[in-house]
């Protein structure tokens, strides 16, 4: 038993080193700000659906003026609790290019649940031309695609503070959280930017949290299902490992006794 325990210990330590230490170098920990806590943290954390729905409202009324969400379809909104009728009516506010008709004319049609979120610009060049040469990034994966993830997103939208004296902000706006502190995006949210349909008070803090919920969902629509499946898989594997360990000890009993 002693050898087994020792081997397992070493294996554990090695695994822990590999996962929780070495690979951190990949994640470039230049920001030492304290981590935030969100509803989707931890083993059992899930996305707050009501918050994500409010986030959709903020995105639609504010962000979508400049930022696309092109990997998400309207039909996906069922994942944060919208009914198919709500999705149909939500999608119908937007227009997309239809397929060429019988005469070869290309017209516009109302968007359907199967369409991706309609982008604010026709192409990246138009987006740049209308934003002083800066391309507003697509927001579908914004939380996954930034070092620091949700915490960074939160700090960025709360990071518009007065610039220190003599700080050159002629190329953009001062932001504490942004690398280099000069960001091309003007402060998008101040609080009371939207009137929430569910009556929640639209403070800046609330709006940012709701956007974090929404964009965490657009980036990882599988998050809730993944975690609940993961827990069941984990329980099964722990059980199976135990059974196999007992079988192993039993089968090896003779070998250890020198009878084989």
């Amino acid at each position, binding site marked *: 038993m*002693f*050898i*087994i325990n020792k*081997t*397992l210990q070493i*294996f554990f330590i*090695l*695994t822990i*080193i*590999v*996962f929780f230490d*070495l*690979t951190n*170098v*990949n*994640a*470039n920990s230049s920001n030492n700000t304290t981590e935030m806590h969100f509803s989707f943290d931890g*083993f059992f954390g899930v996305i707050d659906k009501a918050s994500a729905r409010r986030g959709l409202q903020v995105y639609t009324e504010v962000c979508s003026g400049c930022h696309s969400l092109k*990997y*998400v*379809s309207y039909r*996906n909104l069922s994942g944060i609790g919208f009914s198919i009728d709500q999705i149909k009516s939500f999608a119908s506010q937007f227009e997309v290019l239809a397929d060429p008709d019988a005469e070869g004319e290309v017209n516009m049609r109302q968007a359907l649940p199967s369409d991706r979120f309609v982008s604010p610009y026709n192409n990246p060049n138009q987006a740049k031309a209308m934003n002083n040469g800066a391309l507003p*990034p697509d927001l*579908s*994966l914004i939380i*996954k*695609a*930034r*070092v620091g*993830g949700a915490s960074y997103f939160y700090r960025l939208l709360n990071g518009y503070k007065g610039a220190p004296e003599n700080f050159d902000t002629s190329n953009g706006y001062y932001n504490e959280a942004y*690398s280099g502190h000069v960001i091309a995006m003007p402060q998008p949210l101040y609080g009371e930017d939207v009137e929430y349909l569910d009556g929640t008070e639209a403070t800046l803090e609330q709006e940012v949290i709701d956007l974090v919920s929404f964009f965490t969902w657009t*980036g990882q*629509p*599988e998050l809730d299902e*993944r*975690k609940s*499946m*993961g*827990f069941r*898989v*984990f329980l099964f*594997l*722990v059980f*199976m*490992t135990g059974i*196999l*360990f007992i*079988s*192993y000890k039993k*089968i*090896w009993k003779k*070998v*250890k*006794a*020198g009878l*084989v």
Partner: protein
Amino acid sequence: MSNKNIGSKVIGWIDYRLPIFSTLKHTLVDYPTPRNLNYWWNFGSLAGIFLLIQIITGIVLAMHYTPTVEGAFASIEHIMRDVNYGWLIRYIHMNGSSFFFIVVYIHVFRGLYYGSYKSPREVLWWLGLVILLLMMATAFMGYVLPWGQMSFWGATVITNIFSAVPFVGTTIVEWLWGGFAVDNALLNRFFALHYLFPFLIVAVVILHIVALHTHGSNNPLGIDKKGPQDSIPFHPYYTIKDLFGLSFVLTIFALVVFYAPDYLGHPDNYIPADPLKTPAHIVPEWYFLPFYAILRAVPDKLGGVIAMISAILILFVLPWLDTSKVRSATFRPMYKNLFWILLVDVVILTWIGGSPPEGNFILIGRIATIYYFTHFLILMPLVGVIETTKPLPNSISESVLKKSIKGDK
């Protein structure tokens, strides 16, 4: 090879003409295995299982993936969102590559500790190194396929390494690219090769197993089997032990796949590739970091490339650099210490590989690189000569049974 116990008549009929069943039985059931293998011997079969996991998930991913610069990134998101359980298949594949490398690196270090590369297992060791090289090529090309920022810039940096070759460097790089920049032609051929290489690995794995079974597994004592009392059949003893180890590792694997699927990756790879925008730090996947550190430790481009390649090639001549007659580090007090120092050195190189090349990181990286080569080129031959080894036990069975009787008291 007798086929008396093979079972039904049909199997016997086939086996008489093509001895596939008796070969499998000989390989997976009867194979006489040293009775004293510890848990570090689990990692060979684990590597095989992860290869299989990668091939199966990879084939499914290929059914939904688009190898064009316009479509690649979007097709990955299509897999993550629209394909049934596509997220699960992709996360298994992504993290499976990391686990494949963890398992194989442990397997290699086990070989280093117990002297598994020594006569008569040199060819077995070479075949293992060939597998490692093929794995590296496969993993690198696979990382390019999502066509994110790290994919693109990683491909740019690594393919540019070949431009260090004197006279024909630029020609080679353009030939690799299929053009004058990292673009669609490169993505297409990387996809084709990423699909091909795993099957080459399977072929070399088969040779690896044939070579293994020719002289049998090494063991923690590093002494040869003296007779039948030293070995036990592979089945059921090592099948059950390997299954237990597999289940244990899969549990850790599941935790990563389901709860931290992007932890081992880089966030920048969720940004679509942009040839006009270089990321602040271009870092390869974690399993390449020690080699990346060696590449950057040498101030000359060609020199760096030579050092990086030598870091692996040097392992091919290891059986002759190690002058000790004793295999297992258990009986080699000096070499045992050197082994652990080498392990720490590789950990340091991994850390340096992921750090920006500035300030003290450069110095530490250079010292660690010099030590890496010193270990193999100077210390290994030297220690084998000057070291006083501990007395070897007479036989495996004697040593094991003595211990188990002592354990019972």
